[in-house]
């Protein structure tokens, strides 16, 4: 069973619908015990970085730390990916998980924020998550803060400068875009995770 973690931020229906469509069993849950027992864990997210504080308050952060230790595949989407970094300018007092180093920052003033729409990916060879997805493929973004480029960056995107569109470290994966809203390309990426 794939656990889709509900921390009361935005709408999780579309992520569940996409995983259902791919033929995998999943459940939306806010129960730390269910998250720890799951075969795979997805943290979706739209909205504010500060909402991730709820994960700490409800015991979900601890459950996710155990998930990391057990080697359970983990997938952070949008704010869920940003949470895998150390922090974000959006909520300086809220600590991220620190899987990847650095801070998420607001887009530079010369481009419009939020970054909304379909943009293309520059993909690194050898990514597990993006296997079969060609460089130049388009995916759907909607966000005002961007993650820095790190050693674990497997896809870059350019909007007022390059940022991390996808990151990967062993069994831990994150994407800034919305695979559940990115047509066939997005479904292929979600499928790669669900099969990992």
């Amino acid at each position, binding site marked *: 069973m794939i656990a889709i973690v509900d921390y009361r931020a935005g*709408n999780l229906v579309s992520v569940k619908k996409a995983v259902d*469509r791919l033929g995998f069993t999943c459940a939306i849950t806010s129960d730390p015990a269910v998250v720890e027992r799951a075969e795979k864990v997805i943290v979706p997210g*739209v909205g504010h970085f500060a909402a991730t504080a709820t994960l700490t308050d409800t015991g979900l952060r601890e459950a996710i730390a155990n998930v990391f230790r057990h080697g359970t595949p983990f997938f952070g989407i949008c704010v869920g990916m940003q949470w895998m970094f150390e922090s974000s300018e959006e909520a300086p007092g809220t600590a991220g998980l620190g899987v990847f180093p650095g801070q998420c920052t607001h887009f530079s003033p010369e481009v419009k924020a939020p970054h909304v729409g*379909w*943009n293309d990916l520059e993909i690194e060879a050898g990514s597990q998550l993006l296997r079969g997805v060609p460089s130049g493929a388009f995916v759907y973004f909607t966000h005002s803060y961007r993650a820095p480029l790190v050693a674990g960056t497997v896809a870059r995107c350019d909007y007022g400068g390059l940022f991390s569109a996808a990151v990967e470290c062993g069994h831990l994966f994150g994407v800034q875009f919305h695979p559940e*809203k*990115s047509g066939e390309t997005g479904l292929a990426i979600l499928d790669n995770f669900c099969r990992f």
Partner: protein
Amino acid sequence: MLTKRIIACLDVDAGRVVKGVRFLDLRDAGDPAELASAHSRAGADEIVLLDISATHQNRAILLDAVRRAARELFVPFTVGGGIRSLEDAAAVFAAGADKISINSAALADPTLITRIAERYGSQAVIVAVDAKRLPRANGACWEVRSAGGRKPTGRDALEWVREAESRGAGEFLLTSMDRDGTGSGFDCELTAAVVGATSIPVIASGGAGGPQHFVTVFREGRADAALAASIFHFGLNSVAELKQELRAAGIPVRWPC
């Protein structure tokens, strides 16, 4: 590079599409779920479903249509028409919409924008603005209309979009009441004025009569996206054909799609 979005709009009355972008051999009127999925496959970057009747008794029928459309749709999906409260919005989100579009209700009570944005995020709140040009000696000026463009509000469109943005709107769906249905092209002056007045994305609507009008509204109107309704009127069969024309003119679009 961030591409310009082409958004397919379906007008729905009592659970059936009554006007919309014609796709290949499918007839205009039809099932919203079937048509939404067809437009997505044909290259639409997003789908908007507008409930044009928005009566109380049709609400359950609408939600069922949204649910069925959402099941097969893996691109952003917006639902508008008749959303008057946070509860109305919640029902539409639960049925599978990614964004809602509000218009008259936001004008009547602008705090509605904030309340929906706080719960679902600003990216989920589109404020639809129907603007009508006012005759004025020095410079252009547009008034916001409510109730589907029938009711003048006395509010300046640029002043309203600034307020709506500050209250948490994530995008604007801007319709020119002067151009809507004329086929004479988008109002690029209005679009550019709204784009200049705000920092969030603007979807241009009203007046498209040919592919060249889309090129112009992206270039001169600086629109981030454009709504395609009834493109079969200018001899195209699908959104993909429109995108091919835009590509040839050097406008960045999602391709292949």
